[in-house]
């Protein structure tokens, strides 16, 4: 896998990297274009992790504020723009999850059925400039994981739990949690290289 060879962008559109350069130069129009490409991914991921609309909207605002502030520091060699934005979305969501854990808020405990599905349904390629093949590969591999591994991946990736917290919550021994997460990550990683 060479992430540099996977430009996550729409054919014919201004490249993500070019937009980030323009944002670094102060173009709010470019920020708007980047928002149009990725807001629905950021929002969906934040909704999946936080459940509440208000919290997810806050994450969207946090992410694009950070893109605006840090565009000058973006380093293409480290990650694609899409990757950078996804990492920001998850990090900001985890921040909120962990502060919520520190200050439990019953209103946050929305029934899971109100959350969007993890990886199903149709995606609009005109709406989201993601590498469909790349995402599809990991989506399929996630579904093929043994149930015990997929559950742990969901607890850590989407619920933001640490390995220790997962062990405490599920009763699975910590060593087993570590092994299963590593095995699952290795399987998903292999799926990306195929």
């Amino acid at each position, binding site marked *: *896998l060479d*992430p540099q060879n996977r430009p*996550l962008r729409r054919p014919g559109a201004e490249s993500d990297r070019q937009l980030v350069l323009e944002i670094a130069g*102060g*173009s*709010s*129009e470019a*920020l*708007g274009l980047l*928002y149009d490409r990725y*807001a*629905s*991914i950021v*929002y*969906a*991921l934040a909704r*999946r992790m936080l459940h509440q*609309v208000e919290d997810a*909207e806050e994450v*969207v*605002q946090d992410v*694009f*504020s950070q*893109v605006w*502030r840090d565009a*000058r*520091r973006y380093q293409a060699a480290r990650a694609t723009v*899409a*990757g950078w934005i*996804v*990492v920001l979305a*998850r990090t900001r969501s985890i921040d909120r999850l962990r502060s919520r854990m520190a200050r439990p808020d019953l209103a946050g405990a929305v029934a899971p059925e109100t959350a*969007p*599905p993890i*990886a*199903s349904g149709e*995606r609009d390629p005109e*709406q989201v400039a*993601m590498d469909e093949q*790349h*995402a*599809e*590969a*990991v*989506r399929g591999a996630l579904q093929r994981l043994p149930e015990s591994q997929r559950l742990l*991946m969901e607890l*850590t*990736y989407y619920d933001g*739990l*640490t*390995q220790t917290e*997962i062990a405490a919550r599920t009763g699975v021994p910590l060593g087993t949690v*570590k092994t299963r*997460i*590593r095995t699952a*990550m*290795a399987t*998903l*990683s292999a799926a*990306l290289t195929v």
Partner: protein
Amino acid sequence: MSAHDSFAEAAAAYALDALDAHDAHQFEAHLATCASCQEDLVRYQQVAIALGASISPEAPSPSLRARTLARARAPRQAPRVAEPSIVAGPATGASVAEPDTSRVEGSRPRTAAWQPLALAASLALIVGLSAYAWTQRGAAMTLRAQLADALGRLQSLQADLLDARRDADRLTNTANVVDAPDLVAISLRGQPGAPAAVGRALVSRDKGLIFRAGGLPAPGPGRVYQLWVIPPPARGTPAVPVSAGILTAGASGERVLESGPLPAGIQAVQLVAVTEEPGPAGSPGPTTPILLLGQAGG
């Protein structure tokens, strides 16, 4: 299982932000010296990104776009006038108006000086000059705004440069310590005053020390956390704690210290400890119970 194997297991969890603070610190220290773990981490980070990207997109409320763009633009101080704005950002408008109104006031005498000429001239000339003056005034406003913008960006770039230099110095120091042949790692455990705290010190006699702690509560008002190194007791004399510096708050709430060479006279470190002391400079010797304590080889 070798020590490296356990870190390889940690790489997957680290990419998912699923390690506890103590384990994350241990892994980061190992990561700096292990090419294999660095490669693993890149692969696992790609998985973490792909997992996020694989989620079914969901369009947020249409009104969120304007709110997001307005908020993103709000903190930036440098005004931009020449650029068409797609958001009516109140902060941007204010930042343009405030510095420039006063400066444009200063250009008025030029306009006023043309008045006698205007009085003697035809109406057409007055209208023409007024239009010209207005155009010049507008051009001056734009130029001044662009100048303010450029100055703002220059200041921002200078601040970035200072940050980058500080980061480079810090990283160089960190790399020197981590690469030191006499590196000793000391794990610190929370004591009764801070049972949830954990810490880790990387110590080299020549290159200095790096210290990182998590789980410490915020120090009391006017108080700071001070790091102490304690050499092995010399013959017949008790070991005396020597201050290694004041801990600063890191980006994620952890407490960190990256120092140059060890305090003068310290040849080896037996114990490392943290206490809370009066700020901002700390104390010559510990005055409160130890909160974190670790022993070399312990």
